[in-house]
Protein backbone atom coordinates (compact mmCIF):
# COMPACT_ATOMS: atom_id res chain seq x y z
CA UNK A 1 0.00 0.00 0.00
CA UNK A 2 1.26 3.41 -0.78
CA UNK A 3 -0.07 6.76 -1.84
CA UNK A 4 1.20 8.93 -4.59
CA UNK A 5 -0.26 12.42 -4.65
CA UNK A 6 -1.08 13.30 -8.20
CA UNK A 7 0.88 16.04 -9.78
CA UNK A 8 -1.16 18.90 -11.14
CA UNK A 9 0.13 20.81 -14.13
CA UNK A 10 -0.96 24.41 -14.04
CA UNK A 11 -0.05 24.75 -17.70
CA UNK A 12 -3.02 22.63 -18.69
CA UNK A 13 -6.21 23.06 -16.84
CA UNK A 14 -9.90 23.58 -17.02
CA UNK A 15 -11.62 26.03 -14.76
CA UNK A 16 -15.36 26.26 -14.49
CA UNK A 17 -15.82 24.48 -17.76
CA UNK A 18 -13.63 26.86 -19.73
CA UNK A 19 -10.32 25.59 -20.94
CA UNK A 20 -7.69 27.90 -19.52
CA UNK A 21 -4.48 27.69 -21.40
CA UNK A 22 -1.87 28.94 -19.00
CA UNK A 23 0.82 28.85 -21.56
CA UNK A 24 3.14 31.70 -21.97
CA UNK A 25 1.56 32.82 -25.18
CA UNK A 26 -1.99 33.25 -23.97
CA UNK A 27 -2.98 34.02 -20.42
CA UNK A 28 0.48 34.51 -19.17
CA UNK A 29 0.86 37.37 -21.54
CA UNK A 30 -1.26 39.18 -19.05
CA UNK A 31 0.54 37.76 -16.07
CA UNK A 32 4.28 37.69 -16.42
CA UNK A 33 4.86 37.34 -20.09
CA UNK A 34 6.65 40.30 -21.55
CA UNK A 35 6.07 41.63 -25.07
CA UNK A 36 9.31 42.48 -26.73
CA UNK A 37 9.20 45.94 -28.21
CA UNK A 38 11.52 48.35 -29.93
CA UNK A 39 12.00 52.02 -29.28
CA UNK A 40 11.64 53.38 -32.81
CA UNK A 41 12.13 57.04 -31.97
CA UNK A 42 12.72 59.28 -29.01
CA UNK A 43 11.52 62.88 -28.85
CA UNK A 44 13.06 65.32 -26.39
CA UNK A 45 10.18 67.26 -24.95
CA UNK A 46 11.81 69.06 -22.03
CA UNK A 47 14.91 68.63 -19.94
CA UNK A 48 13.25 65.85 -17.93
CA UNK A 49 10.62 64.40 -20.23
CA UNK A 50 10.99 62.36 -23.36
CA UNK A 51 8.41 60.83 -25.64
CA UNK A 52 9.15 57.29 -26.77
CA UNK A 53 7.67 55.81 -29.91
CA UNK A 54 7.41 52.10 -29.33
CA UNK A 55 6.53 49.17 -31.57
CA UNK A 56 5.78 45.66 -30.39
CA UNK A 57 8.08 43.41 -32.40
CA UNK A 58 5.99 40.31 -32.98
CA UNK A 59 3.41 41.18 -35.69
CA UNK A 60 0.70 38.99 -34.16
CA UNK A 61 1.25 40.35 -30.69
CA UNK A 62 1.36 43.85 -32.09
CA UNK A 63 -1.95 43.37 -33.81
CA UNK A 64 -3.58 41.82 -30.79
CA UNK A 65 -2.36 44.53 -28.42
CA UNK A 66 -5.38 46.61 -27.57
CA UNK A 67 -5.94 49.21 -24.89
CA UNK A 68 -8.46 51.80 -23.77
CA UNK A 69 -7.54 55.45 -23.23
CA UNK A 70 -6.35 55.87 -19.64
CA UNK A 71 -4.80 52.43 -19.22
CA UNK A 72 -1.14 51.92 -18.46
CA UNK A 73 1.58 49.42 -19.27
CA UNK A 74 4.45 48.10 -17.22
CA UNK A 75 7.65 48.98 -19.01
CA UNK A 76 10.14 46.22 -18.32
CA UNK A 77 13.89 46.61 -18.52
CA UNK A 78 15.29 43.15 -17.83
CA UNK A 79 17.98 43.45 -15.18
CA UNK A 80 16.81 46.90 -14.06
CA UNK A 81 13.16 46.66 -13.17
CA UNK A 82 9.75 47.71 -14.32
CA UNK A 83 7.69 50.89 -14.02
CA UNK A 84 4.04 51.72 -14.68
CA UNK A 85 3.57 54.27 -17.47
CA UNK A 86 0.32 55.56 -18.95
CA UNK A 87 -0.14 55.05 -22.65
CA UNK A 88 -0.01 58.44 -24.29
CA UNK A 89 -1.17 57.70 -27.81
CA UNK A 90 -4.16 56.78 -29.92
CA UNK A 91 -5.59 53.33 -29.29
CA UNK A 92 -6.34 52.94 -32.98
CA UNK A 93 -2.66 52.25 -33.53
CA UNK A 94 -2.67 48.93 -31.66
CA UNK A 95 0.88 47.84 -30.88
CA UNK A 96 2.43 51.11 -31.95
CA UNK A 97 2.33 53.15 -28.80
CA UNK A 98 3.81 56.32 -27.39
CA UNK A 99 4.95 56.80 -23.82
CA UNK A 100 5.86 60.14 -22.31
CA UNK A 101 8.33 59.47 -19.52
CA UNK A 102 9.85 61.74 -16.92
CA UNK A 103 13.33 60.93 -15.63
CA UNK A 104 12.56 60.15 -11.99
CA UNK A 105 14.79 57.34 -10.77
CA UNK A 106 16.63 54.17 -11.70
CA UNK A 107 14.51 52.66 -14.45
CA UNK A 108 13.35 55.89 -16.06
CA UNK A 109 16.94 57.11 -16.06
CA UNK A 110 18.11 54.07 -18.02
CA UNK A 111 15.19 54.58 -20.39
CA UNK A 112 16.23 58.15 -21.02
CA UNK A 113 19.64 56.90 -22.11
CA UNK A 114 18.17 54.35 -24.53
CA UNK A 115 18.71 55.07 -28.21
CA UNK A 116 16.23 54.34 -31.00
CA UNK A 117 16.51 50.66 -31.87
CA UNK A 118 16.82 49.58 -28.23
CA UNK A 119 14.58 46.77 -27.06
CA UNK A 120 12.35 47.02 -24.04
CA UNK A 121 9.65 44.82 -22.60
CA UNK A 122 5.99 45.63 -22.04
CA UNK A 123 3.39 44.00 -19.82
CA UNK A 124 -0.25 44.89 -19.90
CA UNK A 125 -2.26 46.90 -20.64
CA UNK A 126 -3.57 47.27 -17.09
CA UNK A 127 -6.17 49.23 -15.21
CA UNK A 128 -9.38 51.08 -15.88
CA UNK A 129 -9.92 53.67 -18.57
CA UNK A 130 -11.75 56.92 -19.11
CA UNK A 131 -15.33 56.09 -20.12
CA UNK A 132 -15.06 57.84 -23.48
CA UNK A 133 -17.92 55.74 -24.87
CA UNK A 134 -20.27 57.01 -22.20
CA UNK A 135 -19.27 60.56 -23.03
CA UNK A 136 -20.58 60.35 -26.58
CA UNK A 137 -22.90 63.19 -27.46
CA UNK A 138 -21.73 65.26 -24.50
CA UNK A 139 -19.42 68.20 -24.03
CA UNK A 140 -16.02 67.15 -22.76
CA UNK A 141 -13.57 69.10 -20.63
CA UNK A 142 -10.04 67.68 -20.82
CA UNK A 143 -7.92 69.26 -18.11
CA UNK A 144 -4.24 68.58 -17.47
CA UNK A 145 -1.67 69.88 -15.04
CA UNK A 146 2.02 69.27 -15.70
CA UNK A 147 2.85 65.68 -16.68
CA UNK A 148 -0.90 64.95 -16.53
CA UNK A 149 -1.00 65.79 -20.21
CA UNK A 150 0.71 62.41 -20.86
CA UNK A 151 -2.25 60.20 -19.84
CA UNK A 152 -4.67 62.83 -21.17
CA UNK A 153 -3.35 62.49 -24.70
CA UNK A 154 -4.95 59.06 -25.10
CA UNK A 155 -8.53 60.38 -24.62
CA UNK A 156 -7.64 63.50 -26.61
CA UNK A 157 -6.68 61.30 -29.56
CA UNK A 158 -9.73 59.13 -29.11
CA UNK A 159 -12.11 62.08 -29.08
CA UNK A 160 -10.43 64.11 -31.83
CA UNK A 161 -10.58 61.01 -34.05
CA UNK A 162 -14.37 61.02 -33.55
CA UNK A 163 -15.26 64.68 -33.23
CA UNK A 164 -18.70 64.12 -34.73
CA UNK A 165 -19.62 61.93 -31.77
CA UNK A 166 -18.95 64.58 -29.18
CA UNK A 167 -20.25 68.03 -28.31
CA UNK A 168 -17.97 70.89 -27.42
CA UNK A 169 -14.43 69.71 -26.69
CA UNK A 170 -12.10 71.85 -24.57
CA UNK A 171 -8.53 71.21 -23.51
CA UNK A 172 -7.24 73.19 -20.55
CA UNK A 173 -3.57 72.79 -19.76
CA UNK A 174 -1.46 74.30 -17.02
CA UNK A 175 2.24 74.02 -16.31
CA UNK A 176 4.64 75.58 -13.87
CA UNK A 177 6.83 77.44 -16.38
CA UNK A 178 6.64 77.84 -20.18
CA UNK A 179 9.63 75.47 -20.41
CA UNK A 180 7.58 72.72 -18.79
CA UNK A 181 4.88 72.80 -21.46
CA UNK A 182 4.79 69.45 -23.25
CA UNK A 183 3.71 68.68 -26.81
CA UNK A 184 3.82 72.31 -27.94
CA UNK A 185 4.03 71.06 -31.52
CA UNK A 186 0.49 69.70 -31.24
CA UNK A 187 -1.30 72.84 -30.09
CA UNK A 188 -1.78 74.15 -33.62
CA UNK A 189 -3.16 70.81 -34.73
CA UNK A 190 -5.63 70.64 -31.87
CA UNK A 191 -6.80 74.20 -32.55
CA UNK A 192 -6.72 74.40 -36.35
CA UNK A 193 -7.37 70.85 -37.47
CA UNK A 194 -9.72 69.71 -34.78
CA UNK A 195 -11.21 73.06 -33.82
CA UNK A 196 -10.81 72.25 -30.15
CA UNK A 197 -10.98 75.03 -27.58
CA UNK A 198 -7.41 74.96 -26.20
CA UNK A 199 -6.41 77.21 -23.33
CA UNK A 200 -3.00 77.22 -21.69
CA UNK A 201 -1.72 78.83 -18.52
CA UNK A 202 1.59 78.90 -16.66
CA UNK A 203 2.30 79.72 -13.04
CA UNK A 204 5.73 81.27 -13.45
CA UNK A 205 6.11 83.09 -16.80
CA UNK A 206 9.45 84.01 -18.35
CA UNK A 207 10.32 86.98 -20.61
CA UNK A 208 9.07 85.24 -23.74
CA UNK A 209 5.69 84.24 -22.36
CA UNK A 210 2.74 86.21 -23.72
CA UNK A 211 -0.04 83.88 -22.62
CA UNK A 212 -2.05 83.57 -19.45
CA UNK A 213 -0.48 83.45 -16.01
CA UNK A 214 -1.99 81.79 -12.95
CA UNK A 215 -3.36 78.55 -11.59
CA UNK A 216 -5.18 76.12 -13.82
CA UNK A 217 -8.48 76.87 -12.10
CA UNK A 218 -8.26 80.41 -13.54
CA UNK A 219 -9.00 78.91 -16.97
CA UNK A 220 -12.39 77.79 -15.71
CA UNK A 221 -13.42 81.29 -14.66
CA UNK A 222 -16.00 82.71 -16.99
CA UNK A 223 -16.27 79.51 -18.96
CA UNK A 224 -19.78 78.71 -20.12
CA UNK A 225 -20.61 75.10 -19.49
CA UNK A 226 -23.75 73.04 -19.54
CA UNK A 227 -23.17 71.09 -16.30
CA UNK A 228 -25.74 68.38 -16.94
CA UNK A 229 -24.27 67.72 -20.32
CA UNK A 230 -20.57 67.90 -19.54
CA UNK A 231 -18.01 65.26 -18.62
CA UNK A 232 -14.58 66.16 -17.32
CA UNK A 233 -11.29 64.30 -17.37
CA UNK A 234 -8.74 65.78 -15.02
CA UNK A 235 -5.13 64.57 -14.99
CA UNK A 236 -2.41 65.94 -12.79
CA UNK A 237 -1.03 65.90 -9.28
CA UNK A 238 -3.55 65.43 -6.43
CA UNK A 239 -3.43 69.08 -5.30
CA UNK A 240 -4.27 70.12 -8.82
CA UNK A 241 -7.22 67.81 -9.42
CA UNK A 242 -8.56 68.50 -5.97
CA UNK A 243 -8.89 72.21 -6.71
CA UNK A 244 -10.09 71.67 -10.25
CA UNK A 245 -12.73 69.14 -9.25
CA UNK A 246 -13.93 71.35 -6.41
CA UNK A 247 -14.35 74.18 -8.90
CA UNK A 248 -16.13 71.93 -11.41
CA UNK A 249 -18.45 70.80 -8.65
CA UNK A 250 -19.30 74.43 -7.92
CA UNK A 251 -20.03 74.85 -11.60
CA UNK A 252 -22.56 72.05 -11.25
CA UNK A 253 -20.88 68.98 -12.74
CA UNK A 254 -21.72 65.80 -10.85
CA UNK A 255 -18.78 64.09 -9.14
CA UNK A 256 -19.63 60.89 -11.02
CA UNK A 257 -19.01 62.69 -14.28
CA UNK A 258 -15.49 63.81 -13.41
CA UNK A 259 -12.64 61.39 -13.86
CA UNK A 260 -9.14 61.49 -12.46
CA UNK A 261 -6.14 59.21 -12.70
CA UNK A 262 -4.32 58.28 -9.49
CA UNK A 263 -0.67 57.45 -9.15
CA UNK A 264 0.69 55.01 -6.61
CA UNK A 265 3.68 52.79 -6.24
CA UNK A 266 3.14 49.60 -8.24
CA UNK A 267 4.99 46.33 -8.35
CA UNK A 268 2.62 44.04 -10.22
CA UNK A 269 -0.27 45.80 -11.95
CA UNK A 270 -2.45 42.76 -11.21
CA UNK A 271 -3.90 43.33 -7.75
CA UNK A 272 -1.41 41.10 -5.99
CA UNK A 273 1.39 43.13 -4.44
CA UNK A 274 -0.89 45.55 -2.57
CA UNK A 275 1.56 48.41 -2.99
CA UNK A 276 -0.95 50.53 -4.87
CA UNK A 277 -3.73 50.05 -2.33
CA UNK A 278 -5.95 53.03 -1.60
CA UNK A 279 -8.66 52.44 0.97
CA UNK A 280 -10.31 49.26 -0.17
CA UNK A 281 -9.23 49.31 -3.79
CA UNK A 282 -6.16 48.53 -5.82
CA UNK A 283 -5.16 51.46 -8.00
CA UNK A 284 -3.92 49.02 -10.64
CA UNK A 285 -7.23 47.10 -10.95
CA UNK A 286 -10.00 49.48 -9.91
CA UNK A 287 -7.94 52.44 -11.11
CA UNK A 288 -5.87 54.31 -12.11
CA UNK A 289 -8.98 56.02 -13.49
CA UNK A 290 -11.61 56.71 -10.85
CA UNK A 291 -14.63 58.94 -10.86
CA UNK A 292 -14.24 61.74 -8.36
CA UNK A 293 -16.95 60.43 -6.07
CA UNK A 294 -14.99 57.22 -5.55
CA UNK A 295 -11.83 59.18 -4.93
CA UNK A 296 -13.19 61.34 -2.15
CA UNK A 297 -14.82 58.28 -0.62
CA UNK A 298 -11.60 56.33 -0.30
CA UNK A 299 -9.44 57.09 2.70
CA UNK A 300 -6.02 58.38 1.78
CA UNK A 301 -6.89 58.86 -1.89
CA UNK A 302 -6.00 62.54 -1.86
Amino acid at each position, binding site marked *: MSVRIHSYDVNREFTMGHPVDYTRRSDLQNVDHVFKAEITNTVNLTEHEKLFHIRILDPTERDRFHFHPGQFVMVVLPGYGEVPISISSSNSQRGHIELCIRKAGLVTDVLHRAAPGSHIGLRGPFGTSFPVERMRGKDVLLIAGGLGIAPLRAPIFYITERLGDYGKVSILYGARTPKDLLFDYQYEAWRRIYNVHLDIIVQEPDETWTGKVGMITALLEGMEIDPDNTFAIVCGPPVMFKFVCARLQEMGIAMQNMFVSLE*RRMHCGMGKCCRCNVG*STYTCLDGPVFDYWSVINQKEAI
Partner: protein
Amino acid sequence: MLYKTITKSDFEHLIDFILEQNEIIAPRKVGEKPDGTPIHQFLPIEAFSEMDLDYSKTEYSAKTYFLPFRENLSTWSFGDGGWKQDIQYRQKPRAIIGLHACDIHALLKLDKVMLKGPFPSPYYKARRENTVIIGMDHEPCGSGFCASLGTDILTHGFDLFLTDIGDRYFVAVDSDRGFRILSQVPLAEVTDEDRRRYVRARAAISEKQTIKVHTRNLPTLLDLTFNSAVWEKWGSKCLSCGACAMVCPTCYCYGVKERVCMDLASASKVKQLHSCNLVDFAEVAGGHNFRPTREHRLKYRYYHQHRGFAEAYDEPMCVGCNRCGDTCLAGINPPDVIADLEQENP
Protein backbone atom coordinates in the same frame (compact mmCIF):
# COMPACT_ATOMS: atom_id res chain seq x y z
CA MET B 1 -18.98 15.98 2.80
CA LEU B 2 -18.15 12.45 3.77
CA TYR B 3 -17.38 11.48 7.38
CA LYS B 4 -15.41 8.45 8.56
CA THR B 5 -13.45 7.45 11.58
CA ILE B 6 -10.01 5.85 11.77
CA THR B 7 -7.95 4.60 14.67
CA LYS B 8 -5.01 6.65 15.86
CA SER B 9 -2.53 3.94 14.97
CA ASP B 10 -3.97 3.80 11.47
CA PHE B 11 -3.43 7.53 11.18
CA GLU B 12 0.22 6.90 11.97
CA HIS B 13 0.34 4.27 9.22
CA LEU B 14 -1.30 6.69 6.84
CA ILE B 15 1.42 9.26 7.41
CA ASP B 16 4.05 6.61 6.74
CA PHE B 17 2.33 5.62 3.49
CA ILE B 18 2.23 9.20 2.29
CA LEU B 19 5.84 9.72 3.29
CA GLU B 20 7.01 6.82 1.14
CA GLN B 21 6.53 8.79 -2.04
CA ASN B 22 5.74 12.35 -1.10
CA GLU B 23 6.98 15.24 0.94
CA ILE B 24 5.17 16.00 4.17
CA ILE B 25 5.23 19.29 6.01
CA ALA B 26 4.04 19.20 9.58
CA PRO B 27 4.37 21.03 12.89
CA ARG B 28 7.67 20.28 14.59
CA LYS B 29 8.92 21.42 17.93
CA VAL B 30 12.05 23.44 17.28
CA GLY B 31 12.82 24.89 20.69
CA GLU B 32 11.48 26.43 23.85
CA LYS B 33 10.86 29.95 24.98
CA PRO B 34 12.54 31.16 28.19
CA ASP B 35 9.34 30.38 30.09
CA GLY B 36 9.37 26.82 28.87
CA THR B 37 6.56 27.02 26.30
CA PRO B 38 7.45 25.07 23.18
CA ILE B 39 8.14 26.75 19.84
CA HIS B 40 6.67 25.03 16.80
CA GLN B 41 7.17 25.56 13.08
CA PHE B 42 5.80 23.94 9.94
CA LEU B 43 8.75 22.00 8.56
CA PRO B 44 9.34 18.97 6.34
CA ILE B 45 9.37 15.72 8.29
CA GLU B 46 10.96 12.36 7.59
CA ALA B 47 8.97 10.24 10.01
CA PHE B 48 5.74 10.33 11.96
CA SER B 49 7.63 10.72 15.23
CA GLU B 50 9.11 14.03 14.11
CA MET B 51 5.82 15.79 14.12
CA ASP B 52 4.11 17.15 17.16
CA LEU B 53 0.40 17.36 16.52
CA ASP B 54 -0.22 18.47 20.06
CA TYR B 55 0.89 22.01 19.29
CA SER B 56 -1.05 25.17 19.90
CA LYS B 57 0.27 27.52 17.21
CA THR B 58 3.33 27.72 15.01
CA GLU B 59 5.40 30.93 15.17
CA TYR B 60 5.30 31.28 11.41
CA SER B 61 2.21 30.35 9.52
CA ALA B 62 2.12 27.80 6.70
CA LYS B 63 1.76 30.74 4.30
CA THR B 64 5.44 30.38 3.57
CA TYR B 65 4.70 27.19 1.58
CA PHE B 66 2.35 29.06 -0.72
CA LEU B 67 3.81 32.54 -0.74
CA PRO B 68 7.48 31.97 0.03
CA PHE B 69 9.43 34.85 1.50
CA ARG B 70 11.41 35.07 -1.70
CA GLU B 71 10.72 33.55 -5.11
CA ASN B 72 11.95 33.82 -8.63
CA LEU B 73 9.18 35.01 -10.95
CA SER B 74 11.11 34.82 -14.16
CA THR B 75 14.62 34.46 -15.44
CA TRP B 76 16.21 36.44 -18.23
CA SER B 77 19.13 35.14 -20.20
CA PHE B 78 20.95 37.74 -22.23
CA GLY B 79 22.69 37.18 -25.52
CA ASP B 80 22.72 38.26 -29.15
CA GLY B 81 21.79 41.76 -28.10
CA GLY B 82 18.46 40.51 -26.76
CA TRP B 83 17.02 38.39 -24.02
CA LYS B 84 14.98 35.27 -23.42
CA GLN B 85 12.44 35.02 -20.67
CA ASP B 86 11.85 31.80 -18.79
CA ILE B 87 8.95 31.34 -16.41
CA GLN B 88 8.63 28.26 -14.21
CA TYR B 89 5.90 27.37 -11.83
CA ARG B 90 6.15 23.76 -10.92
CA GLN B 91 5.56 22.28 -7.53
CA LYS B 92 6.22 18.71 -6.49
CA PRO B 93 3.12 17.22 -4.87
CA ARG B 94 3.19 17.28 -1.09
CA ALA B 95 0.97 17.22 1.96
CA ILE B 96 0.70 19.60 4.88
CA ILE B 97 -0.49 17.88 8.03
CA GLY B 98 -1.96 19.40 11.14
CA LEU B 99 -3.14 22.79 9.93
CA HIS B 100 -5.66 24.30 12.31
CA ALA B 101 -8.93 25.81 11.16
CA CYS B 102 -7.70 29.41 11.29
CA ASP B 103 -4.73 28.61 9.08
CA ILE B 104 -6.94 26.89 6.53
CA HIS B 105 -9.27 29.90 6.58
CA ALA B 106 -6.21 32.02 5.88
CA LEU B 107 -5.52 29.96 2.74
CA LEU B 108 -9.12 30.38 1.64
CA LYS B 109 -8.74 34.13 1.98
CA LEU B 110 -5.50 34.10 0.05
CA ASP B 111 -7.30 32.08 -2.64
CA LYS B 112 -9.70 34.96 -3.09
CA VAL B 113 -6.86 37.31 -3.87
CA MET B 114 -4.57 34.95 -5.74
CA LEU B 115 -7.03 32.81 -7.70
CA LYS B 116 -10.53 34.20 -7.75
CA GLY B 117 -9.94 37.69 -9.06
CA PRO B 118 -8.48 38.89 -12.33
CA PHE B 119 -4.97 37.70 -13.19
CA PRO B 120 -4.93 34.46 -11.19
CA SER B 121 -1.42 33.72 -10.04
CA PRO B 122 -0.06 30.55 -11.64
CA TYR B 123 2.78 30.46 -9.11
CA TYR B 124 0.36 30.29 -6.21
CA LYS B 125 -1.98 27.97 -8.05
CA ALA B 126 0.74 25.42 -8.71
CA ARG B 127 1.57 25.29 -5.01
CA ARG B 128 -2.04 25.22 -3.91
CA GLU B 129 -3.15 22.50 -6.32
CA ASN B 130 -0.21 20.30 -5.53
CA THR B 131 -0.61 20.45 -1.78
CA VAL B 132 -2.87 18.08 0.09
CA ILE B 133 -4.26 19.70 3.22
CA ILE B 134 -4.86 17.48 6.22
CA GLY B 135 -6.20 19.71 8.95
CA MET B 136 -6.88 19.10 12.60
CA ASP B 137 -9.01 20.47 15.41
CA HIS B 138 -7.25 21.72 18.49
CA GLU B 139 -7.65 23.40 21.85
CA PRO B 140 -7.67 27.20 21.61
CA CYS B 141 -4.16 28.56 21.33
CA GLY B 142 -4.35 30.99 24.17
CA SER B 143 -3.99 34.41 22.58
CA GLY B 144 -6.01 33.93 19.40
CA PHE B 145 -9.47 35.41 18.87
CA CYS B 146 -10.53 33.24 15.95
CA ALA B 147 -13.99 32.62 17.44
CA SER B 148 -14.74 36.35 17.13
CA LEU B 149 -14.03 36.14 13.43
CA GLY B 150 -15.73 32.81 12.82
CA THR B 151 -12.51 31.18 11.70
CA ASP B 152 -12.50 28.51 14.40
CA ILE B 153 -14.94 26.38 12.41
CA LEU B 154 -14.38 25.08 8.94
CA THR B 155 -16.62 23.67 6.24
CA HIS B 156 -14.24 23.40 3.30
CA GLY B 157 -10.73 24.15 2.15
CA PHE B 158 -9.15 20.84 3.14
CA ASP B 159 -8.77 17.32 1.82
CA LEU B 160 -9.11 15.73 5.25
CA PHE B 161 -9.92 17.28 8.59
CA LEU B 162 -9.46 15.35 11.81
CA THR B 163 -11.05 15.74 15.20
CA ASP B 164 -9.78 13.78 18.17
CA ILE B 165 -12.63 11.76 19.72
CA GLY B 166 -10.64 9.67 22.16
CA ASP B 167 -9.11 6.53 20.70
CA ARG B 168 -10.15 7.45 17.16
CA TYR B 169 -10.09 10.38 14.79
CA PHE B 170 -13.32 11.68 13.34
CA VAL B 171 -12.43 12.53 9.75
CA ALA B 172 -14.21 14.93 7.41
CA VAL B 173 -13.37 14.15 3.79
CA ASP B 174 -13.74 17.03 1.35
CA SER B 175 -12.08 15.77 -1.81
CA ASP B 176 -11.69 12.68 -3.91
CA ARG B 177 -7.97 13.07 -3.50
CA GLY B 178 -8.42 13.00 0.27
CA PHE B 179 -10.70 9.98 0.06
CA ARG B 180 -8.22 8.00 -2.00
CA ILE B 181 -5.47 8.74 0.49
CA LEU B 182 -7.65 7.88 3.46
CA SER B 183 -8.76 4.63 1.84
CA GLN B 184 -5.27 3.23 2.31
CA VAL B 185 -6.22 2.42 5.91
CA PRO B 186 -9.32 0.69 7.31
CA LEU B 187 -12.21 3.12 7.58
CA ALA B 188 -15.17 2.88 9.89
CA GLU B 189 -18.58 4.42 9.44
CA VAL B 190 -19.54 7.08 11.95
CA THR B 191 -21.56 5.50 14.78
CA ASP B 192 -24.01 7.25 17.06
CA GLU B 193 -21.42 7.12 19.79
CA ASP B 194 -18.81 8.72 17.47
CA ARG B 195 -21.24 11.46 16.66
CA ARG B 196 -21.91 12.20 20.34
CA ARG B 197 -18.22 12.21 21.05
CA TYR B 198 -17.56 14.55 18.12
CA VAL B 199 -20.19 17.02 19.27
CA ARG B 200 -18.78 16.93 22.81
CA ALA B 201 -15.22 17.42 21.54
CA ARG B 202 -16.26 20.45 19.48
CA ALA B 203 -18.25 21.91 22.37
CA ALA B 204 -15.29 21.51 24.72
CA ILE B 205 -13.09 23.39 22.28
CA SER B 206 -15.61 26.19 21.83
CA GLU B 207 -16.01 26.58 25.57
CA LYS B 208 -12.36 27.32 25.96
CA GLN B 209 -12.50 30.15 23.43
CA THR B 210 -12.67 32.97 25.91
CA ILE B 211 -11.05 35.91 24.12
CA LYS B 212 -13.73 38.11 22.59
CA VAL B 213 -12.98 40.87 20.15
CA HIS B 214 -15.80 42.96 18.76
CA THR B 215 -15.23 42.82 15.06
CA ARG B 216 -18.72 43.03 13.66
CA ASN B 217 -18.92 46.78 13.30
CA LEU B 218 -15.23 47.26 12.67
CA PRO B 219 -15.43 48.52 9.10
CA THR B 220 -17.54 51.50 10.10
CA LEU B 221 -15.64 51.98 13.34
CA LEU B 222 -12.37 52.13 11.45
CA ASP B 223 -13.79 54.78 9.15
CA LEU B 224 -14.98 56.83 12.09
CA THR B 225 -11.70 56.57 13.98
CA PHE B 226 -9.49 57.38 11.03
CA ASN B 227 -8.18 60.55 12.66
CA SER B 228 -8.31 59.24 16.21
CA ALA B 229 -5.48 59.65 18.73
CA VAL B 230 -5.55 55.87 19.19
CA TRP B 231 -3.38 55.57 16.10
CA GLU B 232 -0.87 57.97 17.52
CA LYS B 233 -0.76 56.00 20.74
CA TRP B 234 -0.07 52.66 19.05
CA GLY B 235 1.76 54.06 16.05
CA SER B 236 4.33 55.77 18.25
CA LYS B 237 5.24 52.37 19.72
CA CYS B 238 5.62 50.67 16.35
CA LEU B 239 9.18 49.91 15.25
CA SER B 240 8.24 49.62 11.57
CA CYS B 241 9.96 46.23 11.57
CA GLY B 242 7.39 44.35 9.52
CA ALA B 243 7.51 41.25 11.74
CA CYS B 244 3.72 41.25 12.08
CA ALA B 245 3.23 40.87 8.35
CA MET B 246 5.88 38.15 8.08
CA VAL B 247 4.19 35.89 10.62
CA CYS B 248 0.64 36.74 9.53
CA PRO B 249 -1.02 33.89 7.61
CA THR B 250 -2.90 36.29 5.34
CA CYS B 251 -0.55 39.23 4.66
CA TYR B 252 0.49 38.89 1.05
CA CYS B 253 1.97 42.18 -0.12
CA TYR B 254 5.33 42.14 -1.82
CA GLY B 255 7.98 43.99 -3.74
CA VAL B 256 9.84 43.04 -6.88
CA LYS B 257 13.51 43.49 -7.59
CA GLU B 258 15.76 42.51 -10.42
CA ARG B 259 18.86 40.54 -9.52
CA VAL B 260 21.62 40.49 -12.05
CA CYS B 261 23.95 37.52 -12.15
CA MET B 262 27.65 38.30 -11.58
CA ASP B 263 28.59 37.28 -15.12
CA LEU B 264 25.93 39.64 -16.53
CA ALA B 265 24.66 36.74 -18.64
CA SER B 266 21.39 36.46 -16.81
CA ALA B 267 19.11 38.19 -14.36
CA SER B 268 16.02 37.26 -12.47
CA LYS B 269 12.90 39.00 -11.40
CA VAL B 270 12.64 38.27 -7.71
CA LYS B 271 9.56 38.69 -5.61
CA GLN B 272 10.00 39.24 -1.89
CA LEU B 273 7.30 39.62 0.70
CA HIS B 274 7.04 43.14 2.05
CA SER B 275 5.11 44.78 4.84
CA CYS B 276 2.95 47.86 4.81
CA ASN B 277 4.65 48.84 8.07
CA LEU B 278 8.00 49.25 6.31
CA VAL B 279 8.81 52.85 5.56
CA ASP B 280 9.13 52.61 1.77
CA PHE B 281 5.90 50.69 1.23
CA ALA B 282 4.01 53.54 -0.44
CA GLU B 283 6.94 55.74 -1.39
CA VAL B 284 7.08 56.81 -5.03
CA ALA B 285 9.72 58.29 -7.28
CA GLY B 286 10.65 61.79 -6.28
CA GLY B 287 10.45 60.81 -2.63
CA HIS B 288 6.78 61.41 -1.94
CA ASN B 289 5.50 58.93 0.62
CA PHE B 290 1.77 58.33 0.76
CA ARG B 291 2.15 56.93 4.31
CA PRO B 292 5.05 58.84 5.78
CA THR B 293 4.64 58.07 9.48
CA ARG B 294 4.43 54.94 11.63
CA GLU B 295 0.90 55.94 12.59
CA HIS B 296 -0.15 56.05 8.95
CA ARG B 297 1.32 52.68 8.23
CA LEU B 298 0.08 50.86 11.33
CA LYS B 299 -3.37 52.30 10.78
CA TYR B 300 -3.27 51.19 7.19
CA ARG B 301 -2.43 47.60 8.22
CA TYR B 302 -5.49 47.45 10.46
CA TYR B 303 -7.55 49.31 7.94
CA HIS B 304 -6.67 46.88 5.17
CA GLN B 305 -7.16 43.80 7.36
CA HIS B 306 -10.55 44.79 8.74
CA ARG B 307 -11.96 47.47 6.44
CA GLY B 308 -10.46 47.52 2.96
CA PHE B 309 -10.36 43.76 2.49
CA ALA B 310 -13.82 43.41 4.03
CA GLU B 311 -15.26 45.79 1.48
CA ALA B 312 -13.51 44.13 -1.43
CA TYR B 313 -14.09 40.49 -0.45
CA ASP B 314 -17.03 40.60 1.99
CA GLU B 315 -14.98 39.34 4.93
CA PRO B 316 -12.08 40.62 6.98
CA MET B 317 -8.66 39.43 6.00
CA CYS B 318 -7.61 38.69 9.58
CA VAL B 319 -8.29 35.18 10.92
CA GLY B 320 -7.62 36.15 14.52
CA CYS B 321 -4.58 33.95 15.17
CA ASN B 322 -2.84 36.81 16.99
CA ARG B 323 0.55 35.77 15.63
CA CYS B 324 1.18 39.45 14.91
CA GLY B 325 0.45 40.33 18.54
CA ASP B 326 2.57 37.46 19.89
CA THR B 327 5.55 38.44 17.80
CA CYS B 328 5.44 42.23 18.11
CA LEU B 329 8.27 43.52 20.28
CA ALA B 330 6.30 46.69 20.93
CA GLY B 331 3.32 44.77 22.27
CA ILE B 332 0.96 45.90 19.55
CA ASN B 333 -1.85 43.36 19.20
CA PRO B 334 -5.26 43.39 17.56
CA PRO B 335 -7.42 42.75 20.67
CA ASP B 336 -5.93 45.75 22.50
CA VAL B 337 -5.90 48.06 19.49
CA ILE B 338 -9.48 47.19 18.61
CA ALA B 339 -10.59 47.59 22.23
CA ASP B 340 -9.07 51.09 22.19
CA LEU B 341 -10.97 51.93 19.03
CA GLU B 342 -14.17 50.83 20.69
CA GLN B 343 -13.45 53.10 23.65
CA GLU B 344 -13.05 55.97 21.22
CA ASN B 345 -16.62 55.56 20.05
CA PRO B 346 -18.67 54.38 22.99
